């Protein structure tokens, strides 16, 4: 009896306690009940009279029309494909399940990466489910549904035999990526050598042909390729980075209730494992969905207000780059050029702090490289010229052999050899790459110019007019005689400096390629690059012409 009384007393106390102070999560009610309430209220607002004006609220219109217009991709294997009139994939199943939950028919529209936001923002579709990453820039264009229905990350894929385990192994390797991919900034920061393509579809082909050592792209993109046993046998994902949550999205105006209903549906689908089931069915990665299922089963998240609870939802990926102090005047100038000249001028290197920093470093490095390559060419030309012009057959032969080897090596290969040797002697850094490039360019061009000096010495020795002249005087005359050749190879050295980008020197070509990999304005950027180098080389030509005239004048006087 006592036990029953105690139990009864405890039950009463517990009931009272719950009635007086319900837990926080219980305050919002269940998402299921909230969803029912939202849908009932929207249905009740349907215009009764036929031909009446359509409802302003998008959810009401969807329910009254018994149709939801959903934007889906047509070809994104495993996620959404449309072949022979049949739609298949993870996102297709999600779209059907959402329509069923709302109790309406789905009406699908084809969308792609370029129009998936425009169509929903203009109200031509009600909802887009199209492999769209949720980032802070897009937050201003559409309303993303929370919780996110999937999460992708960028993975580095490469041959099985290649040992790449971390960022340290990526430095100076050729990584193929697509233009404008936000994760390219990470690759740039870790000194990868980017090879950019417009379409992700070409990446597997370039991996197979070994054009790319590694390829970086969404894991969702590579999922279909790894389903192919031949591809999976040859390549593996090395590691992942830049996780980005994927969100369904609706228009920012007139969609408040629709967005709330979809938030609740997404919550319920995570909690009940609906998303997970679709993912397993279509063999897409499930790790994120498994984690989310655990989250949305938590009492504090499984509420009507869970989608606004910061402890339950994921933040959008922050892709905003810090602007420069002069970003506004630059943007105003771009607008002025477009309005007055009709030219689409985009100057990404001046608008964000990381791009501006890369650009300044690029310009400074390019000028340093040119000055270094010119000096090295001149010094090595004089040294090798003197040696090749010497009467010692041993010195002459050694210098001649070196010249033949350097002439026989394509400049790209000479740079790579110089880089490999410098890395064996010094720690890998930008300074090492710049130093290696200066030595390689100086050796290649200096050897050729030195050969010209040596040949001029030989012809001078054969002339009766120079008999009795000392070696120094002969050498001076040889410089005058080979002036045009020396100048030609100095110009060649200056023109060759952009090739230093191949071994990781952060000169202007590298800097601008890196900038365009994560921002727009590719065409303007490469025009500026071409103009910069042509002007610099023309300045070098002018300077070298002055040098040649001095050499020839001194030769004439002598």
């Amino acid at each position, binding site marked *: 009896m006592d036990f029953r009384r105690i139990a009864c007393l405890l039950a009463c106390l517990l009931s009272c306690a719950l009635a007086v102070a319900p837990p926080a999560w219980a305050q919002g009610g269940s998402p299921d009940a909230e969803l029912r309430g939202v849908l009932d209220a929207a249905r009740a607002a349907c215009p009764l009279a036929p031909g009446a004006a359509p409802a302003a609220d998008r959810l009401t219109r969807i329910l009254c029309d018994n149709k939801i217009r959903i934007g889906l991709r047509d070809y994104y294997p495993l996620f959404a494909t449309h072949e022979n009139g049949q739609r298949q994939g993870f996102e297709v199943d999600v779209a059907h399940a959402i329509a069923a939950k709302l109790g309406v028919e789905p009406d699908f529209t084809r969308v792609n990466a370029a129009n998936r936001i425009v169509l929903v923002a203009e109200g031509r579709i009600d909802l887009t489910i199209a492999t769209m990453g949720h980032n802070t820039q897009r937050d201003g264009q559409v309303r993303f549904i929370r919780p996110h229905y999937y999460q992708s990350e960028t993975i580095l894929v490469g041959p099985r035999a290649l040992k790449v385990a971390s960022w340290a192994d990526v430095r100076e390797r050729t990584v*193929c990526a697509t233009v404008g991919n936000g994760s390219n900034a990470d690759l740039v920061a870790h000194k990868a050598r980017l090879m950019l393509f417009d379409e992700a579809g070409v990446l597997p082909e370039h991996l197979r042909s070994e054009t790319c050592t590694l390829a970086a792209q969404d894991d969702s993109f590579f999922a279909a390729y790894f389903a192919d046993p031949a591809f999976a046998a040859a390549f593996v994902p090395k590691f992942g980075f830049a996780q980005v949550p994927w969100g369904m999205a609706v228009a920012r105006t007139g969609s408040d209730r629709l967005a709330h209903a979809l938030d609740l549906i997404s919550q319920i689908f995570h909690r009940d494992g609906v998303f997970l089931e679709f993912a397993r069915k279509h063999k897409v990665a499930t790790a994120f969905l498994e984690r989310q299922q655990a989250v949305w089963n938590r009492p504090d998240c499984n509420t009507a207000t869970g989608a606004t609870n910061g402890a339950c939802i994921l933040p959008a990926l922050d892709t905003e780059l810090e602007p420069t102090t002069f970003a506004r005047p630059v943007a105003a100038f771009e607008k002025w050029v477009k309005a007055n000249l009709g030219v689409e001028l985009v100057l990404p290197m001046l608008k964000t702090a990381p791009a501006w920093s890369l650009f300044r470093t690029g310009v400074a490095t390019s000028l340093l490289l040119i000055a270094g390559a010119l000096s090295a060419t001149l010094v090595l030309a004089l040294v090798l010229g003197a040696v090749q012009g010497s009467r010692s057959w041993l010195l002459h032969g050694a210098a001649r052999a070196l010249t033949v080897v350097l002439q026989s090596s394509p400049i790209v290969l000479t740079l790579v050899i110089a880089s490999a040797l410098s890395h064996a002697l010094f720690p890998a850094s930008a300074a090492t790459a710049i130093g290696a490039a200066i030595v390689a360019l100086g050796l290649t061009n200096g050897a050729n110019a030195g050969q010209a000096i040596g040949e001029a010495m030989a012809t001078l020795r054969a002339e009766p007019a120079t008999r009795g002249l000392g070696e120094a005087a002969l050498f001076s005359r040889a410089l005058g005689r080979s002036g045009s050749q020396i100048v030609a190879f100095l110009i060649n050295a200056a023109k060759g400096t952009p090739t230093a980008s191949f071994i990781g020197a952060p000169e202007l070509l590298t800097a601008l390629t890196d900038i365009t990999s994560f921002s727009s304005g590719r065409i303007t950027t490469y025009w500026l*690059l*071409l103009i910069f180098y042509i002007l610099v080389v023309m300045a070098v030509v002018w300077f070298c012409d002055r040098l040649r005239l001095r050499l020839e004048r001194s030769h004439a006087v002598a």
Partner: protein
Amino acid sequence: MTGLLHQLDADFLPQFLTGMTVNFEIAAVALALGLALGLLLAWARVGGGAAGVGAASIIGLMRAAPTFVVMFFLLNAIPRGANLFGVPLAPSGMMAVAVSLVPYSAAYIADAGVAAIRQLRARSPLGALLFLPNVTRAFFVLVMSSGAGAAIGVNEGIAVLLRQAELLPSLGDRLVLFAIGVAAFGIPLQIGFALIKALQRRLSRIMMRHHEETP
């Protein structure tokens, strides 16, 4: 060396040789385009007047254009779908390398062409024939420069060599492989230069004989 041979992919040699043929193809295309443009510019320059000044300016600009930058410019500054009278303008990787070499080859051919035309006008057809060894020299320079294609993923000889080198664990093995590459490019180049020298000598002898026979 035996160790290195064991570490090389079985298909390395055929791939490398195929890659080297790509280098020669790129050089041939660049030279053909350079000949067409360069001879036109040479003709305009020798003609003098406004056309001559214009041609000289264009040649100056082309001389100043770095091949590597032009290559990246062609790949990135031309929109993918761009076309002219239905002909697509965006070049493939291989064509981008070939076209990027055209400013060099056209400027070189223009200079050699001007010299040859002046020789012809001076009634020295044999002097004008020196144009041929100059063109041959340009071809070999273009073959060596076409290695720049490795930077944009063109499957030429240097790209094949560098891919193989990435798989070799030791610096020593990589250097031996690079030496093989230098030899593979260097031998045809040195043979080519030797041929040019022989051709030049022969032409000089013919010219000398011609001068002696002319009253």
